[in-house]
């Protein structure tokens, strides 16, 4: 089926989700997800647990039947197709290696199902073991391997039959931080080598930012925002996305007017300018967001060349955290904010209770 579905758009499959809904009992686990995943793309479904990301993946793999909506791969609907005919590679959270089979037999398993002759199987298995840097491990059993090695075997098994789409369900979740970071890079390399489409599910925003071409942030069964890592970090369209990816300050404000695509708002008596794609009406109550590391104390030796917002605050807490200092600030109206400043012996540390003026770039202020 994979062959017949080829439309010459590269080695990776394109996937379209159209108004996908999955109901369990009466709860909508997935509630109208539409997404176009391009051929050869590394797309991450990112969200907290219960956001519907795993259910979405399970429907693409064919283990769950959508309650409504459609899934098509390379333009053909696969909803009615059982998982074993979809020709999709999948890496599971706990790797799901067959404990009664050796590494070789595990990786050869999909080839055996496809009726490949023994010699051909052995050649492809060896190739796959090379790909994941585990040559010579073929005769071992999964339980004789470390977590990281098991994870590589799972990847080898999922790609050995040359699927055009690889699904991964939190494949690094069970590993320690150091190993996880190494394997993140390896996944990127693998993606580049194979050129196939990856759909990756994780709840770890750092992992998503490091690895993905695009990220779809999911919340409550819906896609909150889709975009490149930079898009999501610098231009969140939604309060949930701003809070879930990285740290954000939220300032309540009232709209006073517009200048091109910059909104002018009043916050704690000060005028704050923010980027805004829409056109809010004067007098609307809105929330502005900005990142802690983009705030500066206005009296520090740092000269801004771009348009700035300014606000008076009181320092309520100061924490030294090695590479940076972290300050909790409070505006006159009680709004709390966080400011992160690179630490340096040349910069004066602020004391608790000190009053200060802070400033930040208008381009780093977003109306959500």
């Amino acid at each position, binding site marked *: *089926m994979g062959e017949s579905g080829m439309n010459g758009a590269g080695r990776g499959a394109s996937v379209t989700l159209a108004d996908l809904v999955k109901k369990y009992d009466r709860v909508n686990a997935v509630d109208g997800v539409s997404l176009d995943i391009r051929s050869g793309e590394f797309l991450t479904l990112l969200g907290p647990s219960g956001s519907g990301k795993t259910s979405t993946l399970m429907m693409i793999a064919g283990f769950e*039947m959508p309650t409504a909506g*459609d899934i098509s791969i390379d333009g*053909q*609907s*696969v*909803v*009615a*197709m059982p998982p074993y*005919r979809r020709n999709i590679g999948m890496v599971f959270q706990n790797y799901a290696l067959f404990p009664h089979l050796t590494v070789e037999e595990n990786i050869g398993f999909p080839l055996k199902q496809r009726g490949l002759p023994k010699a051909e199987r052995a050649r492809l298995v060896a190739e796959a073991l090379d790909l994941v840097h585990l040559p010579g491990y073929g005769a071992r059993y999964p339980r004789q391997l470390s977590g990281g090695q098991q994870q590589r075997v799972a990847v080898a098994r999922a790609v050995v039959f040359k699927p055009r789409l690889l699904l991964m369900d939190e494949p690094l979740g069970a590993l320690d931080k150091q190993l996880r970071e190494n394997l993140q890079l390896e996944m990127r390399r693998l993606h580049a080598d194979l050129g196939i489409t990856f759909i990756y599910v994780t709840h770890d925003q750092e992992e998503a930012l490091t690895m993905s071409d695009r990220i779809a942030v999911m919340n409550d069964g819906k896609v909150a925002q889709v975009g490149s890592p930079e898009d999501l970090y610098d231009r969140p369209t939604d309060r949930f996305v701003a809070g879930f990816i990285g740290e954000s300050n939220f300032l309540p404000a009232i709209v006073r007017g517009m200048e091109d695509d910059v909104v002018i708002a009043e916050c704690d008596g000060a005028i704050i300018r923010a980027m805004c794609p829409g056109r809010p009406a004067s007098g609307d109550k809105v929330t502005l967001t900005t990142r802690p590391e983009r705030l500066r104390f206005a009296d520090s030796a740092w000269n801004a060349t771009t348009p700035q917002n300014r606000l008076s605050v009181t320092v309520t807490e100061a924490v030294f955290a090695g590479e940076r200092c972290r300050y909790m600030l409070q505006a006159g109206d009680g709004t709390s904010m966080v400011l992160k400043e690179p630490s340096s012996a040349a910069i004066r540390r602020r004391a608790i209770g000190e009053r200060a003026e802070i400033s930040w770039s208008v381009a780093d202020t977003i109306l959500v």
Partner: protein
Amino acid sequence: MSEITQPSPVAVSLGAVRPLLLNWRRHVPLLLVAPLLIYMLVLYALPVLAMLLRSLNDPTWTLSHYAALFEDVVFAKTFWITFNTSITVTLGCLILGYPVAMGLVRAKTMAPFILVIILLPFWTSVLVRSYAWMVLLGRHGLVNEGLIALGMIDRPIRILNTPLATQIAMIHILLPYMILPIANALRQIDPSLIRAASGLGATPFMTFRQVILPLSMSGVAAGTLLTFVLALGFYITPAMVGGPRDITLSMLIAQQVDQLNWGYAATLSAVLLATALAILAAARHLPGVGNAFKTSMR
């Protein structure tokens, strides 16, 4: 059905295939269970139900069999003996079983050895174990010989074919059913609780009374229930080692079947079954009871 003869499943319109596929998948579990369900209905459940029905329609539809039980002296006596034996045996098992369960859980190097001693009789058939007690308790059996040798009695006393023999043999047979659930419950007690208790100045006895015993009650409940319900239905052991006049409900039922008194036998069976089920139903919400019958499977 013409839709599914299409060459490629992809080409089939969704509306036609989705319910078909769903229905097929939904019925697979039932298809797997159905052979056994039909087998057990035909060869076991319906036969038992048909037999029980004889209590209501022998010779015509009537409740007279049940009504007659209220004035039936034999039934009253048998029911009393059965109930009484079960209570004695259950208490005996509890008294003997609890220390062994504690020993099993506390022992370190000896634990496998203790487990084998508990399981070996458990794995031996009821018939063989009852026979063993015939050998031990007989007129010239080991117990009598021993008591004479110790000078405690002058001539052999009658133990075999008395209620005492039934009780001893039944306790022996049912003891593992009491030990294993209690040991399970004891094993689940966090050892740091016991250390904490003694660290707070509790004597070992106080620790037992106030920490271990309450926390093992789920196992005690499960073991007691299991032992009691199994004891109610005992047939082979009382028939082999019990007294000729100490007839249990099971023995009375067998006797009535021999005399082809199906109406009476069915009525007694219904009473025995209802008693067992009523006890299980009443105790079903006690913690640990749900697992009791899994434990019974060793």
